[in-house]
């Protein structure tokens, strides 16, 4: 306590110090005067009186200084002085200060921008309490390579009773038709276990969510809606609770409204903006009876018991599974290899973009490093100009530590000012910059410039300022007093160490920018290759418009229950759409068949049993299915390789038919010798669709050419296409090809659809070209950003080498002048300077190439179609760097060549 009080006294003295000192001085003067008077009265001579008085008072100056040192904070006082001096210095050379501050602002601003993205996505991916307890469960059949097969109700109960989890919750994302308001709307909805919100740890802002232990069969009659839906569709009605709404013709009641800040978890932005949650027990009507083998392909999330690590939980889970396998050997055949894998939920959400973001952060870190190096270089250049100042200060008794402290204060001030500038620019431009972030990035809406981000910017600037200010300060303060002072105004030629460091810095800068440029070059080539890839289908002039049919819980109320019922609607809508002016072709498919456009949620993998190849009990491979109308292949320009496409004669009553792609033919009918056998005419059984187990054999009638409809990067994903007139689908996409106005077509198609059924929502219109380009968005974003950073790095490196060579020319101007005076050829001088630039460039490129090899090896996963050691990119980029280095040294070299020897030597 006493220490603290003393500190506060000192602190207050620090602010009032000047006054206290003044008072001391006055009081002592007063004392002196009184004593002198008294001495005079005692009969001393005036001079003796003063002398005696002063003797008696003691060393006034020393007492004052001692008092100041003891009662104040000399460190802070010095710091204040240093800062004031640093400000004055910055003010005196505005050009230098501006360049340095702008460079740092660029580096810190860019780094902070990327950090703000990482902060929102990687560091805080889950906006729920205790996010580390949340895990995602994935059941796999490792024996047959089937992933994420889902859980059955008995398995779910086993997990709930295992004691490993607080809650285990199934969820199934989809869309529902909300009817009753002005325009039928399709809303994102999730069917979840009643424990879903309890597992996430979030409660409603209005009303409540379900009781986590509620396990009624079928759907519960109450739903929870999002704040957005509440405001959009219900005008934020405060009496919403208990009101009814119609979903796919079923009536539900609103039980709760989630807070505005709540975002659902999920891998797509659609899923994260879910508007409505319905609870289901997932057994009883309409779900099939709870059998151990009837698995739902649902997402399973769970909250671990507090304090249980994911690893420990996995261990207990493995034990449970081993026991279940022993207990139910018929349901879990050994060759299936049933396992349940547990992953922290946060990891599953950012998995895909993680690599891209880390790459970006690395790239921007390099830019920051280069800008710091550049500023350090500028500081060093100034150091030689300040050699005299430092020598004089030292000669006057300044300690070296004191000098370093002063120099460090100056560089820290520069960096902090730069950091603040960068942050301010970022803060003002955040809205503008966010436009460039691809929408597919998870938690895009949560990217913000928060206090944490500000703290990051400040820490980065201070750390950079300390690290990159220390070396110049060290070298500047280290000098030979005699030599420097004797050299008078000639600058310090003897600063060998300093120029070595400058060269090292420039080489480092060049190397770093080479690394960045090679990374950018490789990404650019990958992007270009993907862009130019043979799609296997033709997206031009095709617009896809989605609608969805109601899917009521009671099949008896479903007017589109059978394929024949649905066919009437589909054929009529297609016929009417063809009458829209400009439309040449139309087709319809389920949502999973939209090329590249559909999200992960729509992918439907079903077990594929091949006739004669597998017994029923074996675990079959899974294959992606698409349900399409006969016109689909022609409209998308996909070529038939063998057999026939669907025809109008394939209807519900005729034998089921399917078309597969070449990849499926290659993988599943490889033939005995591996040359491939003709799959046409083979029969398969497709099982496992929820509630629609179909025991009928499906005959393969045709093979279609591979198309990159699943992923641009993957040429051959096995696909099986089914006929929409044989297998009804609820989530539909209508396609039109032709000279249509993309802005108007949506309304035109809506009119046609709703003239057939006014209850159907029509939503999400997109041209396939847009779909294509947005499927590249994350790649494009990281490519563009890295390219931008690389360009910045190159510019900074060019500035660095220009500065260094200019400085060298200045330093050597005497030598050059003497050479010229002695008759050296001007061309030789030019060559001499250029050679210095080239040496630096060569060293930089050498170091950089090694670094680039390491980096490109690490980023191999982000590349497509180009080797990480692509010779063309490596050599091209090196050539560009060398050319820029030569160009940047050319100006100072010309100046050296045109030096006037007489003027130079006179000036010295």
């Amino acid at each position, binding site marked *: 306590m006493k220490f603290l009080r003393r500190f506060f006294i000192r602190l207050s003295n620090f602010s009032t110090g000047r006054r206290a000192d003044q008072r*001391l001085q006055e009081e002592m003067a007063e*004392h002196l005067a009184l004593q002198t008077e008294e001495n005079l009265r005692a009969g001393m001579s005036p001079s003796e009186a003063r002398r005696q008085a002063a003797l*008696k*008072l003691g060393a006034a100056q020393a007492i004052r200084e001692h008092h100041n040192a003891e*009662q104040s904070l000399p460190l802070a006082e010095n710091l204040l002085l240093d800062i004031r001096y640093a400000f004055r210095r910055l003010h005196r050379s505005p050009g230098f200060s501006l360049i340095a501050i702008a460079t740092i602002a660029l580096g810190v601003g860019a780094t902070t921008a990327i950090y703000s993205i990482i902060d929102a996505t990687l560091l805080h991916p889950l906006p729920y309490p205790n996010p580390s307890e949340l895990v995602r469960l994935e059941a796999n059949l490792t024996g047959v390579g089937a992933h994420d097969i889902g859980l059955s109700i008995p398995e779910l109960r086993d997990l709930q009773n295992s004691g490993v989890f607080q809650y285990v919750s199934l969820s199934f994302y989809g869309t529902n038709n909300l009817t009753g308001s002005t325009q039928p709307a399709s809303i994102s909805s999730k069917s979840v276990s009643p424990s879903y919100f309890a597992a996430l740890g979030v409660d409603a802002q209005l009303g409540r969510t379900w009781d986590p232990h509620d396990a009624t069969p079928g759907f519960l009659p109450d739903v929870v809606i999002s704040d957005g839906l509440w405001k959009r569709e219900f005008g934020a009605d405060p009496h919403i609770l208990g009101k009814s709404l119609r979903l796919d013709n079923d009536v539900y009641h609103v039980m709760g409204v989630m807070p505005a800040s709540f975002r659902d978890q999920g891998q797509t932005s659609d899923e994260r903006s879910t508007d409505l949650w319905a609870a289901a027990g997932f057994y009883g009507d309409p779900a099939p009876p709870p059998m151990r083998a009837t698995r739902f392909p649902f997402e399973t999330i769970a909250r671990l018991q507090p304090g249980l690590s994911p690893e420990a939980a996995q261990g207990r889970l493995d034990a449970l599974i081993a026991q279940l396998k022993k207990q139910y050997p018929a349901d879990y055949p050994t060759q299936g290899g049933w396992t349940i894998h547990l992953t922290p939920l946060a990891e599953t959400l950012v998995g895909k973009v993680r690599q891209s973001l880390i790459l970006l952060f690395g790239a921007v870190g390099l830019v920051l490093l280069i800008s710091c190096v550049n500023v350090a270089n500028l500081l060093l250049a100034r150091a030689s100009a300040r050699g005299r100042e430092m020598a004089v200060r030292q000669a006057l008794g300044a300690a070296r530590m004191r000098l370093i402290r002063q120099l460090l204060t100056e560089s820290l001030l520069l960096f902090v000012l730069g950091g603040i500038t960068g942050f301010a620019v970022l803060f003002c431009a955040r809205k503008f910059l966010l436009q460039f972030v691809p929408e597919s990035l998870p938690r895009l809406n949560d990217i913000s410039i928060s206090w944490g981000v500000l703290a990051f910017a400040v820490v980065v600037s201070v750390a950079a300022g300390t690290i990159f200010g220390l070396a110049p300060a060290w070298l500047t303060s280290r000098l030979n007093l005699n030599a420097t002072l004797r050299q008078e105004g000639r600058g310090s030629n003897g600063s060998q160490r300093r120029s070595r460091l400058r060269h090292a810095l420039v080489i480092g800068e060049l190397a770093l920018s080479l690394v960045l440029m090679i990374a950018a070059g490789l990404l650019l080539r990958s992007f270009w290759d993907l862009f130019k890839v043979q799609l296997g289908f033709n997206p031009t002039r095709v617009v896809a418009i989605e609608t969805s049919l109601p899917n009521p819980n009671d099949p008896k109320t479903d007017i589109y229950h059978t394929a024949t019922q649905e066919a009437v609607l589909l054929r009529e809508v297609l016929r009417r759409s063809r009458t829209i002016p400009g439309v040449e072709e139309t087709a319809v498919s389920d949502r999973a068949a939209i090329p590249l456009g559909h999200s992960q949620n729509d992918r439907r993998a079903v077990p594929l049993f091949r006739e004669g190849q597998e017994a029923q009990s074996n675990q079959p491979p899974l294959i992606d299915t698409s349900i399409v109308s006969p016109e689909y292949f022609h409209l998308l320009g996909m070529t038939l390789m063998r057999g026939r496409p669907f025809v109008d004669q394939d209807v519900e009553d005729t034998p089921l038919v399917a078309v597969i792609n070449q990849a499926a033919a290659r993988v599943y009918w490889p033939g005995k010798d591996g040359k491939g056998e003709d799959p046409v005419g083979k029969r398969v059984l497709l099982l496992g669709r929820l509630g629609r187990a179909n025991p009928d054999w499906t005959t393969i009638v045709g093979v279609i050419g591979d198309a990159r409809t699943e992923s641009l990067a993957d040429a051959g994903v096995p696909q099986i296409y089914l006929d929409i007139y044989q297998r009804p689908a609820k989530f539909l996409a209508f396609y039109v090809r032709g000279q249509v106005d993309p802005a108007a077509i949506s309304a035109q198609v809506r009119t046609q659809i709703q003239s057939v059924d006014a209850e159907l929502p029509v939503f999400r219109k997109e041209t396939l070209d847009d779909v294509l380009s947005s499927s590249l968005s994350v790649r494009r974003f990281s490519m563009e950003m890295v390219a931008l950073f690389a360009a910045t790095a190159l510019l900074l490196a060019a500035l660095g080498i220009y500065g260094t060579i200019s400085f060298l020319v200045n330093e050597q101007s005497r030598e050059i002048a003497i050479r010229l005076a002695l008759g050296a050829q001007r061309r030789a001088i030019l060559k001499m300077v250029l050679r210095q630039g080239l040496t630096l460039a060569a060293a930089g490129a050498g170091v950089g190439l090694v670094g680039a090899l390491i980096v490109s090896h690490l980023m191999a996963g982000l590349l497509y179609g180009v080797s990480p050691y692509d010779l063309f990119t490596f050599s091209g980029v090196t050539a560009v760097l060398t050319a820029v280095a030569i160009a940047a040294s050319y100006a100072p070299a010309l100046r050296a060549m045109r030096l006037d020897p007489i003027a130079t030597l006179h000036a010295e």
Partner: protein
Amino acid sequence: MKEKPDVLQGTLALMVLKTLDVLGPQHGYGIARRIEQISGDILALNQGTLYPLLLKLEHEGSIVSQWGASENNRRARFYRITVTGRKQLQTETRDWNQTAAIIARFFEVKAEDLP
């Protein structure tokens, strides 16, 4: 010449407080004179060191100061002891007496007195 004893740490403050307590408000020179008179020539005091001490005591709230006129009508800063100062003086006086008593007892003890 014989070395004069230095002012013992902390005792100067005690002297100042006692002086102000006995004599009432005083200016710095007056306090210095008083200390000199009482201690005679025995104590070697750089009178200048008095002033930082006065500042410190004022900061601690033991004394307060205000401008006034000295005997020969010069403007001078007068110091006055506060309630806090009086309390401090009491405690320190007691402490000092205790210490002095203990030390005195040690000096009185002779070898034959010890059991």
